[in-house]
């Protein structure tokens, strides 16, 4: 059943409350956990697919478009390999150029040097708006 609850504040039975804005703007609008090596997706929300463009270079495609492209992306990556880097460049394309995000897509890169990317086992991304 579709419906709408209109309220300014959320409150639990113990009296703890928070402004509705915190729920609306403070919750992730999309997230995904995937293996950068091979692109196997472990779990996701509002992500339709991950495109592997090159080793360590990905496009995250959103299922439902966001209201605009001014969202914030938080990402992390790590590997079981002890010598692997764990950084993530956000809104980045090939090669390390700014890839302008759209309401349905943005790029990330997991670099291992200034010119080379690497595929990391645990690559996680969350989007807030």
């Amino acid at each position, binding site marked *: 059943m579709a419906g709408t609850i209109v309220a300014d504040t959320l409150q639990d039975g113990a009296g703890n409350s928070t402004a509705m804005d915190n729920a609306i703007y403070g919750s992730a609008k999309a997230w*995904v956990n*995937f293996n950068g090596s*091979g*692109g*196997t*997706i472990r779990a*996701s929300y*509002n*992500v*339709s*697919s*991950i*495109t*592997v*463009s*090159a*080793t360590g270079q990905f*496009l995250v*495609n959103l*299922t439902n478009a966001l209201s605009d492209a001014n969202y914030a992306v938080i990402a992390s990556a790590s590997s079981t390999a002890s010598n692997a880097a764990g950084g993530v460049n956000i809104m980045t394309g*090939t090669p390390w150029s700014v890839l302008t995000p759209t309401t*349905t*897509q943005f790029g990330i890169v997991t670099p291992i*040097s200034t*010119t*080379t990317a690497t595929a990391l086992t645990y690559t996680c991304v969350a989007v807030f708006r």
Partner: protein
Amino acid sequence: MSQVIIYQNSNGNVSVCVPTGELPINEVLAKDAPAGAIIVDDSTLPQGADAQFFDAWKLNGSTVTVDFPTAQAHKLRDFNAAAVQVAQKRQLNTLAGIENTPSDADFTANLTAGRTAIASAKTTIDLVAIANPA
């Protein structure tokens, strides 16, 4: 066996679009991939050792193959970059040894040895040229 979407990207390589399952793959194909992209079973993509040469994958019709000359060049490039890092680290170790020398005599000896080491260290080892001599 899972299905994925593949297409030739602007770099001439292969992009692989992996659906999360939130939408049917045909909708993902229409939404997330350019015209000409196709759906294939991931078991048809290069497997095993060939899978590591992803940046050398080429799309021929609906078949993905590994372009081995490109794969070889990429591996040599990576090896070359690693060799440069080793050479640079050796130089830094040599300089650190000179700086920490206690006596003037040792300093002179280490300075001479350091100069020799730095002069002989290759900052770039061109393995591509070695592999493909003129």
